[in-house]
């Protein structure tokens, strides 16, 4: 069962790490998107419903500290958490490469989705060729960080081996 007692400090810890450490680790314009990775890990470990809830919470926290429209990260990360959770149903989570690969694909998709949703609500400049470069950079860096983040999220979700199978 999801334990908010662990999940809440993990979300705030991720926010602090993101703001103080990861935003400075830039290659080009891209840096790891820890809050998006938390949403991906949530979907991966806890299924579609809780993945969406964790994604929404992570996105809301991220939204408070950027000047882009409030709710855009929450919407995007909730969708990413939901889709990852849905796609993971029935997958056997033994291979080591599943979480990095999922993080790579989901983070890339998440950044592109963020750009497209942003464009839909009037931020037309979010969509350009640069968006794909940015998404690729974020995807690659999140893939590197996937294993430890999934481990921490596993602990936060109460040793979540139950995964999404009952959803």
């Amino acid at each position: 069962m999801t334990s908010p007692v662990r999940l809440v400090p993990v979300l705030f810890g991720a926010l602090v790490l993101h703001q103080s450490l990861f935003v400075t680790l830039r290659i080009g314009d891209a840096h790891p998107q820890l809050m998006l990775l938390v949403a991906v890990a949530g979907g991966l470990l806890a299924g579609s419903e809780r993945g969406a809830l964790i994604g929404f919470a992570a996105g809301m926290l991220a939204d408070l500290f950027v000047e882009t429209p409030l709710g855009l990260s929450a919407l995007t990360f909730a969708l990413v958490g939901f889709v990852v959770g849905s796609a993971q149903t029935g997958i056997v989570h033994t291979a080591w490469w599943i979480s990095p690969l999922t993080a790579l694909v989901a983070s890339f998709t998440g950044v592109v989705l963020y750009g497209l949703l942003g464009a839909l609500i009037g931020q037309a400049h979010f969509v350009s060729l640069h968006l794909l470069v940015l998404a690729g950079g974020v995807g690659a860096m999140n893939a590197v960080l996937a294993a430890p983040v999934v481990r921490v999220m596993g602990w936060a979700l109460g040793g979540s081996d139950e995964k999404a199978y009952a959803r």
Partner: protein
Amino acid sequence: MAVYRRTSRPRFTLLLLVLTAVTLLTLDERSNGLGVVDAARDGARDLFAPVKEAADATFSPVVDFLDGALHHGDLKAENERLRDQLSEREATVLRAADAEREREALLDLAELDFVGDIPAVAARVVLTPASGFDVTLRIDKGRDAGIAKGMPVVSGGGLVGRVIDVSRKRATVRLVTDSSSSVGVRISSTGDLAVAAGRGTGSTLRVDLVDPATEVAKGEIVVTSGLQNSAFPPGIPVGKVVAANTAAGALQQDVTIEPVVDLRRITFVKVLLWGPVE
């Protein structure tokens, strides 16, 4: 035993979350910087700032190490460039002193304002852009220090941006690279007027309205024009020309500049306590 069943509950939950997010987006759009959404944002940032400062201090050795590792090539190139610049400066320092006297005399004569006389507030950057789409900085001074919306923000090298939001102890600065930012500029060698516009994501600016006949050299500095009602005082370096081309039959040149200030690694800024001259 695990129960394998699919219900519509996850989709219903997602629908609720989407509706909540859309409501927040609408409120944010409608509030236009004045509503409860912005107050919540400001409150959260002010509350978080001490934690962020403590975390910054804790992680700074790690950040410095990783920054050095990730940007070793950049730092080496920057060292080379700075060495070149230093030798050039040494050669021009005597001429500069003379030119400065001449410039001051001209400014006195024309009663022009210049940046050096404008009162300024030094501030530390407490939040750098936290996503590739966010082109703002958060600084540790606000209304209490005399900062108001619209004030220009500079750093050692030149223009950084403009204050777009102020709380008592914090202010948000929109960088010149933001797509909604446009700055009236003057090309330093020719004096031609133009407009430098940000591109949003990415780190260069587009300069519009440059006559195809104007000679624009790579490396040339573009400064704020400071015309009447301009949002910035005159003479602040904005960027350095990195490309200038004219397509056949075009009515203007395609000029690209990169900011003189490294906006990705900015630590301290100065807010000019200045408003447009009517």
